[in-house]
């Protein structure tokens, strides 16, 4: 294995950058999330050799950096408020979408942070439960339980929203 070159880095950036930023947006405002993602890639560039699972490594670095920054600022409450108030668009809207992008974002934002993180990693990070367990430091059965719980909450929220739409 050799050191990482810039072409390799650019390929990984194109492949995982957007998902990583979406993941970082859970903890940080827009610009800060971008900085965290960029820092993660710079850290990757400084590795003497690439990690075995680059994608999982990047997600782990983004997670650790985001959480440590939150701890540093001691403003979790304010950050959460900022996070809920921010007008950053998470998903691209498309007429073919089965779920409205704005609605999905709204529902995800209201999920408890631990459940939201697992959904993000599983669906948009395309990670296995084992990889998610490795990143979050939880057991696989626990991750599975929380993932099912999150899906159930999303389903209920979607049903609730569609009921409201029908009534209106």
């Amino acid at each position, binding site marked *: 294995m050799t050191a990482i070159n810039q072409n390799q880095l650019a390929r990984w950036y194109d492949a995982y950058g*957007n998902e990583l930023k979406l993941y970082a947006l859970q903890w940080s405002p827009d610009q800060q999330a971008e900085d965290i993602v960029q820092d993660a890639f710079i850290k990757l560039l400084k590795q003497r050799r690439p990690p075995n699972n680059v994608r999982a490594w990047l997600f782990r670095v983004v997670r650790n950096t985001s959480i440590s920054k939150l701890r540093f600022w001691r403003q979790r409450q304010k950050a959460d408020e900022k996070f809920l108030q921010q007008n950053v668009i998470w998903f691209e809207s498309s007429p073919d979408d089965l779920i409205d992008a704005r609605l999905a974002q709204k529902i995800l934002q209201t999920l408890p942070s631990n459940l939201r993180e697992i959904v993000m990693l599983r669906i948009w990070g395309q990670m296995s439960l084992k990889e998610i367990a490795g990143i979050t430091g939880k057991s696989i059965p626990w991750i599975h339980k929380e993932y099912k719980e999150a899906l159930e909450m999303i389903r209920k929220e979607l049903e609730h929203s569609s009921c409201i739409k029908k009534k209106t």
Partner: protein
Amino acid sequence: MYKEENLTPAERALESALGQLKPVANALNRDEFMFNAGRASVGRKLPWQMFSVALTVLLLCSFLFRPGMNETYNLPPGSKQNQFQIVQTQYQPAEAGYPDSMSYPILRENVIKYGLDALQFQENAGNQKPLINQKELLDSILS
């Protein structure tokens, strides 16, 4: 191994529906990132490392090209000798068994003071004869 497929069909459908949503594509500033990456890759050679390398090279050069013990100097043209050598000599202490008065500095001083008679003194030093100079010697012969 935990089975990831342990989801109900409704959960699967919801999962795939959510998976259709694509994160915003231009969420990141790629140019800015590539610039930062380039700067970071250059920044890996830290200034202190370069400084220490320069110091090491200087140290090696000073060892390799330091002035030797014997140096040759060029005299200006027309001088008697074109070249001469400076040979450094070390002070040799008197050999063991000789009295202190036979040591080189003292002998040299005596030669300067009394002339070559001092050398006679050196020869007679082993016999413990009294020191006489040339005048006294002449007087003793004539008398």
